[in-house]
């Protein structure tokens, strides 16, 4: 097909003429196939990512309906949740994990889907590898049977986590039935203080707006503190949009986005990249864009943030004291009391100094190279405290190689951390990395739900990778700024 200048394509034109449109509007309109009788939009999905947990049942449903994958070239697969991180050697010791892996391989083979295989050094957490390969691009609609698909919004994509029936829908039709979300612009003004990271920003946002605050919204993150962030940091912020109740979150694409994509294996190259950049610029929210809601937060007021409870909204600055039931609004009291009882933490006590048993650095929130680099700066300054088990798990095999090239595994190992192979690891209880009993874990992951890390009584304190590293060294929650 002959290349057209972007403004001559329908999508480019639609986006260009609407200075009052948000990125969400522009992308939504460009991908609309039709309006459905139920009021939803039939939305074309430009990139579909699958993994071993939520896809096998979808393929089975497809088979039951006698259907094939409509556009196998738009779907990419990897394995992340169940893969053991001590050794990825096949067959996996856990028979259930091995069966899931085999099923994924079979489905990819049968349906001609590209599989990023651990045996070829291409594997990683789905939300880590798609961006690093350049698959994730501005202006795309992206879907994956995993709620943290919101991560890809860091590039100015509209990216949704979906359920298994919807995975089937995308496989069969390359479309989803979706309701257009409203857009809330969240501006982080000013500059972040030293030692404050993207993770602290998103934990702070969720603490302010609540875990239900984002229901019905897409979050548009903007403002100087967001613009100053690298793409990896923006991914950390967008990753946890879902924890704030928003189904997707995004940052408008800018020079940093284009620079990140330049030279990536599956991103456009040369003249195609120049055409792409023109379109990518055109879809960013216009200067007169209208938002359903706006929130602004002064970045300078954010401190290193730690959760103390059983959902990601229950957090506080590391120097603050755990709230007392009488200090919070009525509708939060029961949840706070439940959290304090489960976590065995005392109302009114400082969070700093809380002893930990396990430290986990990794996950799709914070398992990328810059996360490991920052954590290694702390690790280089000491040794993991006696009795603490500390794990560093790169988010992908490519991240592992890049870390190796910089000598990070040696730094971590010398400090007493275990250096593992790529996967979701202790973020959730689907592989051998789990908490036991009532262990307290300082974790760079995204969920502190009861039992999330594998022990029904296990406890999670979410924080940035740097804060996890500091907690590992001290054996207790510590203000990492004192070690940086």
């Amino acid at each position, binding site marked *: 097909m002959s290349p057209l200048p972007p403004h001559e394509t329908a*999508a480019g034109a639609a986006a260009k003429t609407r200075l009052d449109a948000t990125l969400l509007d522009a992308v939504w309109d460009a991908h609309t196939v039709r309006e459905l009788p139920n009021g939803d939009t039939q939305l074309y999905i430009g990139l579909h990512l699958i993994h071993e947990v939520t896809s096998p049942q979808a393929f089975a449903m497809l088979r039951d309906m006698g259907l094939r994958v409509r556009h196998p070239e738009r779907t990419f697969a990897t394995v992340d949740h169940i893969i053991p991180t001590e050794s990825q050697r096949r067959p996996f010791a856990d028979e259930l994990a091995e069966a899931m892996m085999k099923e994924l391989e079979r489905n990819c083979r049968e349906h001609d889907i590209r599989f990023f295989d651990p045996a070829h050094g291409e594997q990683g957490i789905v939300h880590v590898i798609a961006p690093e390969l350049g698959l994730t691009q501005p*202006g795309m609609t992206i879907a994956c049977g995993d709620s943290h698909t919101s991560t890809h919004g860091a590039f100015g994509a509209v990216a949704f986590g979906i359920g298994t029936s919807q995975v089937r829908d995308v496989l069969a039709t390359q479309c989803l039935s979706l309701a257009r979300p409203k857009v809330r612009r969240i501006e982080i003004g000013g500059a972040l203080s030293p030692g404050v990271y993207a993770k602290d920003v998103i934990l702070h946002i969720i603490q302010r707006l609540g875990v239900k605050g984002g229901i019905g919204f897409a979050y548009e993150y903007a403002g100087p503190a967001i613009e100053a962030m690298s793409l990896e940091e923006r991914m950390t912020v967008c990753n946890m949009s879902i924890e704030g109740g928003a189904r997707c979150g995004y940052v408008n694409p800018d020079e940093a986005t284009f620079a990140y994509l330049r030279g990536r294996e599956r991103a456009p190259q040369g003249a195609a990249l120049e055409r792409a950049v023109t379109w990518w610029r055109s879809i960013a929210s216009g200067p007169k864009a209208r938002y359903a809601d706006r929130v602004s937060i002064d970045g300078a007021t954010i401190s290193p943030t730690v959760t103390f409870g059983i959902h990601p909204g229950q957090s506080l600055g590391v120097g603050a004291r755990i709230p007392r039931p009488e200090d919070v609004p009525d509708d939060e009291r029961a949840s706070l009391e439940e959290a304090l009882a489960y976590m065995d933490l005392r109302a009114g006590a400082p969070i700093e100094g809380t002893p930990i048993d396990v430290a986990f650095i990794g996950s799709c929130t914070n398992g990328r190279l810059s996360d490991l680099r920052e954590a290694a700066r702390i690790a280089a300054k000491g040794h993991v405290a006696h009795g603490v088990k500390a794990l560093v798990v790169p988010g992908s095999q490519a991240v592992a190689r890049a870390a190796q090239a910089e000598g990070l595994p040696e730094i971590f190992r010398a400090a007493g951390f275990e250096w593992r192979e790529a996967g979701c690891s202790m973020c959730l*209880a689907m592989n051998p990395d789990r908490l036991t009993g009532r262990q307290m874990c300082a974790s760079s992951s995204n969920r502190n739900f009861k039992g999330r890390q594998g022990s029904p009584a296990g406890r999670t304190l979410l924080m940035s990778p740097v804060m996890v590293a500091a907690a590992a060294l001290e054996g207790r929650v510590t203000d990492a700024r004192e070690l940086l």
Partner: protein
Amino acid sequence: MSAKRERITGRACVLRGDDIDTDRIIPARYLRAVTFEGLGEHAFEDDRRQAKGNHPLDDARFAGARILVVGSNFGCGSSREHAPQALMRFGFEAFVGASFAEIFAGNCTALGLPCLTLAPQDLARLMDCIDLDPAQEIAIDVTGRSVTCRAGTLRASLPEGTRRQLVEGSWNNTAVLLEAGGAIESTADRLPYLRDFSATS
């Protein structure tokens, strides 16, 4: 077309508490499987074990319940369809609550399970009424958007599009989406990243 879900009647089970997440509904260790079979018996497993028989799902008064009555933000957390699958396989056919996490509600619709919401005071009335008389039959009228118990008929909310899908039996989206036919590819052909600068192959 899938089955029509116009009305669901049966006993109800009351599960109090807000922000009940999908890890609690179905602990992740039960996701290590390639089918949804057998998930029903593990619904709320960790909570139930900790409650040592005092969990509503183990309460003999609620045995055989087809309706689950919950608080706000039910089903938050992961996008796993395993959560509604586990509850459906446990025996629930409908949910009534203060609010539902979006992905959870969407997953339920895709399985033909209505998630109706009630105003806070109505939800409290419904919960109290069921607690007083767990044997009573609760009627959910999906078509007319209401929940009827001994205490009366309560007005419920359900998005109009979802209501239509359920009552018309068009909640299996794949069939509906396929009807667009070639319009799917013509939309793709207009997308700059597919026609102009596609680099993925």
